[in-house]
């Protein structure tokens, strides 16, 4: 159907008419008039559709809660280690432990230094996380668990300061973290991250012709899941009515 030149012309004309009849939102980018030609199969042309409305500054402010390592998004505010300690005990310790050591399977937030090459790496803010902004951003959007976005900017600065203290990154209980000094704090493991390099370091996984016949003389079983016996079995399966 779309191959008919007459129909395609009509469709193109209708698209132009919609653009022309959309005066409610200003068009900042003057675009060349699209030619009324049929577009490639499966690829709809999406020149301006005039859908959506302008986001108001108050609306952007209400939702724009993200914080970046360079400080973009940090709200004005401040808080000390001491203030953070008090808040942490009431808001966070039930899951994360008084000293960020973690309760049960809830995340451990402190310690773990030197463990990253061991059999049991402990990936905490101090031992693993590269950027302090991540702490602020995550508390701000998701904590306390089950009551998200209930903390004030000052409270989040204080909690972040306390987490620095728990991880021995600041030693002074009077230390005050604020939007002014935030980006001067560096986390110890920051330099240990690099971008995906699989296409070079794992080049050997590409382009080989695998063996199909008589590939090995002997096969040995070296491990069995059944020995560990940690698979949920039918006795513990959820009941469905």
């Amino acid at each position, binding site marked *: 159907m779309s191959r008919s030149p007459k129909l395609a012309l009509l469709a193109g004309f209708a698209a132009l008419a919609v653009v022309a009849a959309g005066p409610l939102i200003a068009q900042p980018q003057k675009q060349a008039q699209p030619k009324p030609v049929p577009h490639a199969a499966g690829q709809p042309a999406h020149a301006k559709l005039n859908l959506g409305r302008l986001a108001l500054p108050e609306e952007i402010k209400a939702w724009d809660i993200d914080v970046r390592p360079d400080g973009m998004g940090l709200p004005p505010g401040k808080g000390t280690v001491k203030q953070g300690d008090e808040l942490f005990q009431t808001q966070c310790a039930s899951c994360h432990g008084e000293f960020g050591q973690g309760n*049960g399977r809830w995340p451990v937030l402190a310690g773990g230094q030197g463990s990253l090459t061991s059999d049991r790496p402990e990936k905490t803010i101090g031992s693993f996380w590269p950027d302090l902004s991540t702490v602020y951003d995550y508390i701000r959007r998701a904590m306390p668990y089950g009551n998200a976005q209930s903390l004030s900017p000052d409270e989040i600065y204080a909690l972040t300061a306390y987490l620095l203290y728990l991880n021995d990154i600041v030693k002074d209980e009077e230390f005050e973290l604020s939007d002014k000094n935030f980006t001067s704090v560096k986390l110890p493991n920051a330099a240990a991250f690099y971008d995906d390099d699989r296409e070079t370091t794992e080049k050997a996984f590409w382009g080989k012709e695998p063996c199909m016949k008589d590939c090995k003389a002997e096969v040995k079983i070296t491990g069995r899941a059944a020995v560990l016996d940690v698979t949920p079995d039918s006795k513990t399966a959820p009941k469905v009515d």
Partner: protein
Amino acid sequence: MTSPRNRESLSRRRFLGAAGMAGAGLAASATGARAGAPDPLITEVQDWNRYLGEGVDKRPYGMPSRHEKHVMRRDVSWLTASPESSVNFTPLHELDGIITPSGLCFERHHGGIADIEPANHRLMIHGLVEKPLVFTMEDIRRMPRQNRVYFLECAANSGMEWRGAQLNGCQFTHGMVHNVMYTGVPLKALLEEAGVKPTAKWLMLEGADSSGMNRSLPLEKALGDVLIAFAMNGEALRPEQGYPLRAVIPGWEGNLWVKWLRRIEVGDKPWMAREETSKYTDLLADGRSRRFTFIMDAKSVVTNPSPQAPLKHKGRNVLSGLAWSGRGTIKRVDVTLDGGKNWQSARIDGPVLDKSLTRFYVDFDWAGQELLIQSRAMDSTGYVQPTKDELRKVRGVNSIYHNNGIQTWLVRANGETENVEIA
């Protein structure tokens, strides 16, 4: 009233629960009399054959047969602290073809399932754009839309197997993957409405759930095949899959596919959110970590037989499995029944689509001998699925994510199947 059919499925389940009952599997698996006494299921009129069944409106939004109740997502309770931030697994061994039923697509939430009325949902695009915009669901449904089949795999799928065979069942070792047809609009179309500024390089996607899930996405990918989807498998997204709106990032790790998507900020640098620094970075043996490992490498698994789906019959059998690659299409799948001594190329059947699950089969005869089954996928870029040991050599055992190593199932003489590692 227990019908003969019910008795049969009970005995099958008893067999599955009773590991080590030598020979029980084959004995219990006889489906009806083969010789001798006539089968009462044939010679007697059954209830369902005599009495009226339920009428048309009894199941206005249909559910699977009540005899399929064992087919369900299941979690591993010891994995996480709370079910609101947890994962369950797709029962791959109960499925066939390439499409995952919507109700069986594995779930992974960080703050529970957000319950959002579509009329109350908003999507905002702001940051480095000419015009910050707010879209309603009605707006999005008025945009040109596309239908695409893609797999969605959690980067942590098979993550429990880095140090060795741990869980018995491909539901648990490989069930953090599903494959559906998405309907949505290209993110490119939304970005063009807002007018992306020339300095833009990254996007931040954010969910409306109680974790405010956020991740950074390179602009180049966003302008490529990314969809903002409102439907899957022809119906509205399921709540546990992000109703009413989610991101679809083909071939890339599931964590980026932000559900309940409400905000896209355009920027010049990545945000270094919790999900891309403290999680979803791959810790290597030297203590350094790879970040932004977005692409899911080629992978495959034999779904049948597998520990939850043992072999029940000698003679003719169908081996079946799934293969997929985040880099393109599946070109070939090889299968071994003898632990890698000899391989044969599997028969691929059904659509072979870009960044989609692909179904393969090997039709074979089984005489009751022990089998060591593996599958090995090759994709359109020439990538060959590595063994677990080959992977460990490059990545160590601490990376948690992106374990696409070759899986081994041991089928014992009685048909019971277990997850093993071989050398």
